[in-house]
């Protein structure tokens, strides 16, 4: 009797040890993170018009030696070369249309109007969207928007710089990251030939197999990035 009871207690305890152990992050969707940064003391209410490229840049497919230098100080030093061991995956462009549509929808809900580039209108800001997928831990500063220059020299014939904060991001195995960078063309420094970034929204998460889940996660996280950045609203001081 005594042994039976003791055994029962031990088995129960062992079962509870397994059943009750906290599992932490145990779903791909739970790895989704949204990080937004705003420029310090920047008056967002002055901007009204925007433009957005029709493609999502592959941020991994960049020769980092060609990146523009930093401004020092709060902007940090010149970006280090793309870290060794960073095994980039080739990103899928299957979601490009959905992503850009969701970004545009959110941005226009804030009151921005997209310019007609063909009509020669010049937007106040440009929203650049890039994606990256990596197999390894990667930490680097500055996203290489010069990649856009190949497609959109109009926006980045000048180097983009980050006068207000360093943009250090971390991605790791095997994640996908979507970066939205809002640059102010109105505040471009013509002497230095640089364009300030006034907002970044970074969406990261573990890559999953299910396309349905991926589309849902992308929409949810993009919405969250704008929801937690109400200061972007046009006309809001």
């Amino acid at each position, binding site marked *: *009797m*005594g042994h039976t*009871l*003791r055994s029962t*207690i031990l088995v*129960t*305890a062992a079962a*509870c*040890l397994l059943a*009750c*152990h*906290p599992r*932490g*992050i145990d779903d791909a969707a*739970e*790895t*989704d*993170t*949204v*990080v*937004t*940064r*705003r*420029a*310090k003391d920047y008056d967002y209410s002055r901007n009204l018009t925007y433009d957005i490229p029709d493609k999502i840049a592959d941020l991994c497919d960049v020769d980092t030696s060609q990146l523009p230098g930093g401004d020092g100080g709060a902007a940090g030093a010149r970006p280090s070369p793309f870290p060794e061991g960073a095994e980039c995956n080739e990103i899928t462009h299957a979601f490009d249309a959905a992503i850009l549509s969701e970004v545009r929808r959110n941005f226009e809900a804030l009151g921005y109007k997209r310019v007609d580039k063909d009509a020669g209108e010049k937007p106040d800001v440009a929203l650049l969207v890039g994606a990256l997928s990596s197999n390894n831990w990667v930490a680097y500063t500055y996203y290489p928007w010069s990649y856009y220059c190949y497609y959109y020299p109009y926006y980045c014939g000048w180097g983009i710089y980050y006068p*207000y*904060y360093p943009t250090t991001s*971390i991605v*790791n*195995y095997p*994640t996908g990251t979507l970066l939205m960078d809002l640059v102010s063309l109105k505040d471009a420094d013509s002497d230095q030939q640089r364009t300030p970034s006034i907002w970044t929204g970074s969406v*990261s*998460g*573990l890559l999953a197999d299910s396309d349905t889940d991926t589309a849902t996660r992308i929409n949810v996280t993009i919405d*969250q990035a704008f929801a*937690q*950045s109400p200061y972007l609203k046009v006309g809001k001081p």
Partner: protein
Amino acid sequence: MIALTRLAAFTATLAPFALAAGTAFAQSGPPAAPGAGPQPTQPPAPPPPPQAAPAAPPPPPPAVAEPQPVQYPPPPGYPPPAASGPVYYSAYPPGQVYEPPPPPSRPPRQKRDLLMVAYNTSVGLGDTHDFAPDFSFLGFSFDWRARVSDNFWPGISLGWQVMYGKDVKTLSYGNTTFTGTIATSLNVFPMLATGNYYFMTDPKRARPYAGLGVGAYAAEHRLDVGVWTISDTSWHFGFAPEIGAVLPTGNLRLVVSSKFNYAFASDRWDPLMYFNFNVGVEL
């Protein structure tokens, strides 16, 4: 000689009763005592005539040359009381049975030491609750206690408690805002020297006790966010008052107790504060 003399006198006192018993007595009367009564093969002596009993001759006086023994009073129960019914054995009735004096009335001797193994649940308070808000069902403790007196049992206590929580949070720091699922867990390992006072000491009954532990707490703070994990282990000095009771149930002694743990702030970590609710066995 003296014995024979006394036996004769004793026999004389029995004579009237033997007559009253009738022939049954006469036919089956056994010897009084081995060596003292008539031989088993000998027929019983015929009872003396009734009139002879009062006139039984006195015992002959002892020889003058022998020292005169002191006439002690007869011991209690001697001569034996006369039987009211038929007496088949004229043996000495059983005397008073010897009964040893009762032992001093104290409880059975307790063990020198004991081991308590307990399953622990807990709930955090204050900063600990903020970090890991869920009610924890994962914890164990081992208590060893040595007897100094029946009431006072100092010892040591080792434990392991996991507290945890998971939630989607939006945090802002400076110009940066973060949103994501944050899973936190807190592994606490108390290592305490304890003093325990048992208010009742009978091991066959419930034994409530109160104790206080003082010692070190190791705490591993772990934070999972996105695909990143941050963990940091801190050491704290703390104390833990406890109340409980040992309940005897069959072969096992169950222990139920509750303990309040407080560990002071250390380095950059806030104080630890949580309640334990324990069920265990005393071995």
